[in-house]
């Protein structure tokens, strides 16, 4: 303590060159903090202008003409003009100083990433809200045009980082459709096993963060714990906990390790037992019910009109599950139920995700019983490289391997879109091919991106605390929203 104060005194009484340095530093700090410094106000304004990102705010309601207001309401509430232009709902006489514009985010723990929501509040009631996105946009679709098809899955797996297998799956299915390649049954069933386990881990993380958002903090610990068990199995199979790059065009990267069946059965037994515990812990709890029931209700018409999919759409009573409606992989050979809600509120969305974990466990058990033997990737030489031991003994195999990894495989011209049911809704991949080894255009239909449009109608008239619960039950993954 005394030593440091001595040092401080020493520097303050230092040499002339020290003092000059210190004053230069202080000048810089002053300017950065906007205090009056060398250069004065002009410099401050210049610095602020350069770093100012521009106003992204709700427009001033009082000064707008009627058609402008109509458009603006439509844009903010994401409802058709006929529905949004109900002036009985909007109190035009509210002076703007009685409402408050509040920014939630972009870095708020309950926004599940870098989601920014602008809310207009009257007291604690949300009048309007608007999600502002793009903070995590990294141009992955543009990157996808630069990468060859066998590199593409390592790009797309990073989009929805909580369900990476689904990104890889939809990409691989689309490429296979363009190629016209048949995938062996074992690869299909391995994909199905991994996707259902991924659905469990994704919904477990959702249970955890939803618990944290609405005050059931102990669920946060339990949810992360259960997810970790699934991720340990993923690490055993793929080598990585997330962003696996395991499902690739033509099959999967490797066969399942020895003892996988015991691991999966143990995981299913444990998870289903613990799901009963969490049922006891959460479902009957009056506080949780109070926080979720009749909060953020959405009608079926609104959900369909907004293009929502997944648990959000099913909570309104529309039983749309692509695993059943447009069976891909081998979902038409396994037995499972589509969980559907009735009211469309947060409670229904909670119950749907909760019970979908149980259905996924059911599918995993069936996969364990019926996993076929055989190849784990297609034997089409155009897509699959020769095995490692062939490279050691055959020059042709070495050349073939080299060409496949330097030039890639060519995909016939055409366009294809293949959707899958991700934990968040319909995730699809649209690829336009020009006959080269790189996609001409790669578009990922992100479920979170479309589902986020449901926030303003759900949050309208809710309390600010309910908005947190609503964002939580939409379950957006911002990597998927922004891509």
């Amino acid at each position, binding site marked *: 303590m005394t030593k440091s104060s001595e040092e401080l005194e020493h520097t303050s009484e230092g040499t002339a060159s020290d003092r000059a340095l210190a004053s230069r530093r202080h000048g810089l700090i002053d300017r950065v903090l906007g205090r009056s410094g060398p250069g004065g106000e002009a410099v401050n304004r210049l610095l602020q202008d350069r770093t100012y990102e521009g106003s992204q705010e709700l427009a001033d309601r009082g000064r707008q003409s009627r058609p402008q207001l109509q458009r603006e309401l439509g844009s903010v509430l994401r409802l058709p003009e006929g529905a949004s232009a109900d002036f009985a709902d909007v109190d035009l006489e509210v002076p703007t100083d009685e409402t408050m514009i509040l920014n939630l985010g972009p870095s708020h723990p309950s926004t599940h990433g870098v989601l920014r929501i602008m809310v207009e509040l009257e007291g604690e009631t949300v009048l309007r809200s608007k999600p502002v996105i793009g903070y995590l946009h990294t141009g992955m679709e543009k990157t996808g045009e630069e990468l060859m098809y066998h590199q593409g899955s390592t790009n797309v797996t990073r989009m929805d980082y909580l369900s990476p297998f689904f990104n890889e799956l939809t990409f691989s299915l689309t490429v296979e459709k363009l190629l016209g390649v048949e995938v062996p049954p074992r690869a299909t069933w391995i994909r199905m096993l991994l996707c259902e386990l991924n659905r469990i881990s994704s919904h477990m993380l959702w249970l955890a963060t939803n618990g944290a958002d609405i005050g059931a903090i102990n669920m946060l610990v339990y949810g992360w714990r259960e997810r970790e068990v699934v991720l340990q199995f993923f690490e055993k199979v793929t080598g990585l906990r997330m962003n696996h790059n395991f499902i690739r065009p033509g099959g999967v990267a490797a066969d399942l390790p020895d003892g996988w069946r015991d691991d999966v059965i143990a995981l299913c037994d444990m998870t289903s037992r613990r799901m009963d515990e969490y049922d006891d812990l959460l479902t009957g709890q009056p506080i949780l019910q109070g926080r979720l029931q009749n909060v953020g209700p959405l009608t079926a018409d609104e959900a369909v009109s907004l293009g929502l999919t997944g648990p959000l759409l099913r909570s309104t009573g529309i039983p749309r599950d692509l695993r059943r*409606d447009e069976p891909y992989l081998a979902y038409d050979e396994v037995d499972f139920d589509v969980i559907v809600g009735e009211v469309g509120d947060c409670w229904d969305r909670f119950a749907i995700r909760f019970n979908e974990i149980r259905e996924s466990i059911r599918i995993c058990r069936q996969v364990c019983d019926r996993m076929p033997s055989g190849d784990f990737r297609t034997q089409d030489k155009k897509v699959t490289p020769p095995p490692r031991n062939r490279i050691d003994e055959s020059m042709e195999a070495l050349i073939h391997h080299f060409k496949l990894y330097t030039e890639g495989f060519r995909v016939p*011209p055409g366009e294809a879109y293949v959707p899958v049911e991700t934990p968040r809704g319909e995730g699809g991949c649209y690829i336009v091919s020009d*006959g080269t080894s790189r996609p001409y255009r790669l578009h990922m239909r992100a479920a979170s991106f479309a589902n986020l449009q449901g926030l303003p109608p759900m949050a309208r008239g809710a309390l600010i605390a309910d908005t947190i619960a609503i964002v939580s039950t939409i379950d957006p993954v911002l990597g998927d929203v922004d891509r």
Partner: protein
Amino acid sequence: MSDADQARPAAHDEAGEGGATAPPGAVAVLEDVHGCPMVDSLGSRVVHTDRARYHALLEGLRGDGYDLFVGLTGVDYLTHPGRALPAGVGPERFEVVVELWRIRDRRRLRVRCQVPGDDPWVPTLFDLWAGAEAHERETYDMFGIRFEGHPDPSRILMPEDWEGHPLRKDYPTGHVPVQFKESPDRR
């Protein structure tokens, strides 16, 4: 719409072997949907249209019961060697691709609309499906295709003052200076 026949995965071989030299207009038309040709694309049903018939076609499809708006995106065909289109649809630089789903009988339909490159705009679908809002903003942001009548035609993923539209094929890649300036207009 009386589209009872299953879509056939037939076009793959012709399109696949032809490569870059596949002549446009070689695609067989399966059916006529509201005055626009429907073709088969690897087992999917795709309706081709141009800007003049775009909104009327989508309005007709909305009336046919395609109630779920799955997605909308754009494609820039500037450097594409040539694509197979049905007769009566001339190729343009941009395409707007719309994916629809009918809940009643679980059918899927894709619409591809040709948009000229010199003045890229199409009418908005916000009046038919409110869910088109974010997808159209994203397509505007990435391709610069304007959606006339859209309630909030602004950028959604890129910063508001960004210059250029990144997913266009003539957008330079490799080195892009990071730019943050004051926004010229208030949203």
